């Protein structure tokens, strides 16, 4: 018994210390987020194993399992149109715009997940592989303003591993045809 006690006490101290640390770190983070103005809610999604994000205020809704109807005579990256509760909405392939191949679309042209944007004039959407998360993060804007990826942000994924996600600029993604990403 006498042997175990100090051992236990030691463990206990250790655990408490760790807890305190975590707590402090959390508080630090809270202070950090409050202190910085540029904190945004960002919707994260996966495209070919790569994570991207879009500020939530630019998004109208997320749709799932919608049939995409191809429209003849459109640009290559335009996948077609979808019916969102009676509204016709154009869908594009974001990977093609980023110069990274094509998004996989399921059988019978049924899309996995779609992100519909707002404030772009027309009703416009992109296809993604999977919507993963909604995070609160700070976006550091790129100095190169002509890129579709307008900035980067950090995300914590699962076991404390930080990941960098590219934040897309919907305006450039849909309209700026002069900039073709060649990363």
């Amino acid at each position, binding site marked *: 018994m006498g042997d175990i006690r100090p051992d236990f006490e030691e463990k206990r101290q250790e655990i408490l210390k760790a807890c305190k640390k975590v707590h402090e770190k959390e508080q630090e983070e809270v202070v950090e987020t409050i202190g910085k103005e540029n904190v945004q809610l960002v919707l994260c999604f996966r495209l070919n194993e790569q994570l991207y994000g879009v500020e939530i205020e630019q998004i109208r809704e997320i749709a799932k399992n919608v*049939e995409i*109807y*191809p*429209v*003849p*005579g*459109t*640009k290559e990256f*335009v996948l077609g*149109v*979808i*019916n969102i509760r*009676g509204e*016709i*909405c*154009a869908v594009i392939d974001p990977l093609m715009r980023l110069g990274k191949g094509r998004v996989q679309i399921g059988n019978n042209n049924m899309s996995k997940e779609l992100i519909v944007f707002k*404030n772009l*004039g*027309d*009703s*416009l959407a992109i296809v993604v592989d999977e919507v993963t998360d909604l995070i609160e993060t700070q976006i550091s804007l790129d100095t190169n303003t002509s890129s579709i990826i307008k900035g980067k942000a950090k995300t914590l994924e699962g076991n404390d591993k930080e990941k960098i996600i590219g934040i897309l600029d919907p*305006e450039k993604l*849909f*309209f*700026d*045809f*002069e900039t073709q990403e060649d990363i």
Partner: protein
Amino acid sequence: MGFNTTKFIESFLSVAKDRLVKLEKAALEGDSLSKEDFEGLMREAHTLKGEARMVGFKDISDMSHQLEDFFLELQQGTGDKTSIIDKILEHIQNIRTKLEKIENKTQGEKNLQGENSSQKEKAKPKRVIKRKDTKDKILRVRSERFKKITDLSIETVCAFKQIEQTGLLFRRLCSKLSEIRIEWDQTYIQFSKGNISTDLNEFHKKLHQFCDLVTKLRSRYDSALSLAAPTVNNLLVECLEARMRPLSRIFDAYPAEVHRIAARLGKKVNLHISGGEIELDRDIVEAINEPLIHLVRNAIDHGIESPEQREIKGKDYTGNLWIKAKRQGQKVIIEVEDDGRGIDIAKVRNKALRKGIILDKLIIEQDGHLSESLKKLLFSSGFSTKDEISDISGRGVGMDTVKEAIYKLNGAIDIFSYKDRGTKVVLELPISLALMQVLIIRVSDHIFSLPTHWIKDIVFFDSSKVLEHEGIPKILINNESLYLFDLSKILNLTPSKNKTFVLVLGHERHKKAFLIDELITQTEVILKPIPSYLETDFVMGSNIFENGQISLVLNVSNILRIDTLESLTKTSKLNKKNKYIKHSKYSKPKILIVDDALITRSLLKNILISAGYEVNSATNGMEALEQLGRDRFDIVLTDLEMPIMDGYELTKKIRSNERLKNIPIIILSSHETQDDIKKGFAVGADEYLQKGNFTQQTLIEVIEQLLHHGTSNYIV
């Protein structure tokens, strides 16, 4: 002032009177007014001043200015209140007398035009009463909202039609049920000869009750439908009619336009307009305005000769220009015709050669028909016979854009020329774009709709009738050999295997045959627009089936333009390349007008639309920001004094927004002190124009400069 304001005087008068009533009432309440009230009143007086300026009544404008000062005095509380209020009331009365004088004058002019002048006195009182009547019956609704309402109504009608369709299914189900009931009854009778168990008896009763209930439900359903059907049909008819606008809405501006162009080119032109009373969907009317102005410009610039040349040719000194509209079934034909020199074939050929295009068969037939290759050349982008680029025409974008605009509306364009006797351009347009008779077909794995008025023939595909002509397949249909296309290839779909039908599409002189997989049905659909973002030539809209499926409505006029599959792939690539540039640089510049006064808004809108811009308007800074958030604009034209958010604030907000900060901003105001102007530039405006002394000319110059060079050096 450089433009015709008579159209606006009437609405100015009625709005101004309302404003005076408001001011008068407020002045009488003098003591109890709050700071906000005063601000509102001063704005009211200020707007009146601006409007009066815009329509050219300087005296009223000056008086309103004084009124503004009086209210300021009243608010500051300097001087004797009652005497100020007296002055305000006196002023309001004076303005009112002035307005009445103007009204009588315009009434008088109207009477003179309409009736014998001697009856003027007698007719006047009657007219005034009548006018009041109609005024009460007109309700102002924002066009956006109105469009939404009609769109929704049409969709409701569509949904109802689909419910009717399911009604058919229901009826079939009911008759099936009564069959089952009879069958059961017979079995039951056979059973009842023996001993019936109580269970069976129970079931028999239940079944009968159920059948009775269904029959009851059916009769209710039927009567509900038959009650609603005529109402719904009326709704559709009313909606379609409410969207109609007479062509005179755009035609009315042409005499001034023609006068302006002719004067600038030193030509004499008599304009004859007919058919202004013909009504079309307002979207179509608005969409053809610019193409028509293009054609008019072309006719005066290229077609009609100078008076001297005309004299030499033995023609009348003054040239003639006809704009004729007539209705033909579900179509409207608009002709723009001049009695000028006609198309100069030698010049066209020269120009084509210089551009490196070698085309024989550039022929104009005796009957005025142009050969296909000549037409194609004239309508191709970048083609103009003018040697120098003038600001009237000859920029080489004219005919190309006209054609594009007409095709977009599912219309057709043709051109005829007679040497030294003139040129005639004929436009064929549908009356409405909302409702359309279509044939639903399957091509490869996809369902499409085709407007039926393009369909000339449908036959079974017989491969023995196909013959190759210089490597291009043709098919013999009714003793006519037509070019044959595989629609799935044109639409860039996976090639279909079982081509069963051949559709003959086109019009008399221009027919082509297309292979398709299946005919599904013929029906009337409500056309839903597709996002303009798609920029496709092949699809003009869509319709949604009851199960939510989308069927795209093909733009047949564009599909018919395809010559051979080889040239298709080339042209479509070319087109696409052009379009990327077009989107960013050459699309119609879009202007946002921000002003709280309706008259200023509509006046500016009129000027800018006829100058070839796309125009949206907002009534205050807040609304403007909303629109700027939703849409992209190339220029903002704003007033300063406005409720909710004024022009200074709006300019500041735009300049501080990352996305919007580079939009050129023009302030158009009746504030004219140096301080105001300084403040305007300080918050970030690019230009400052004064309502009092600006002209159409300067406004457009300033806009063009800002659009093309980013800055203008125009200082008032």
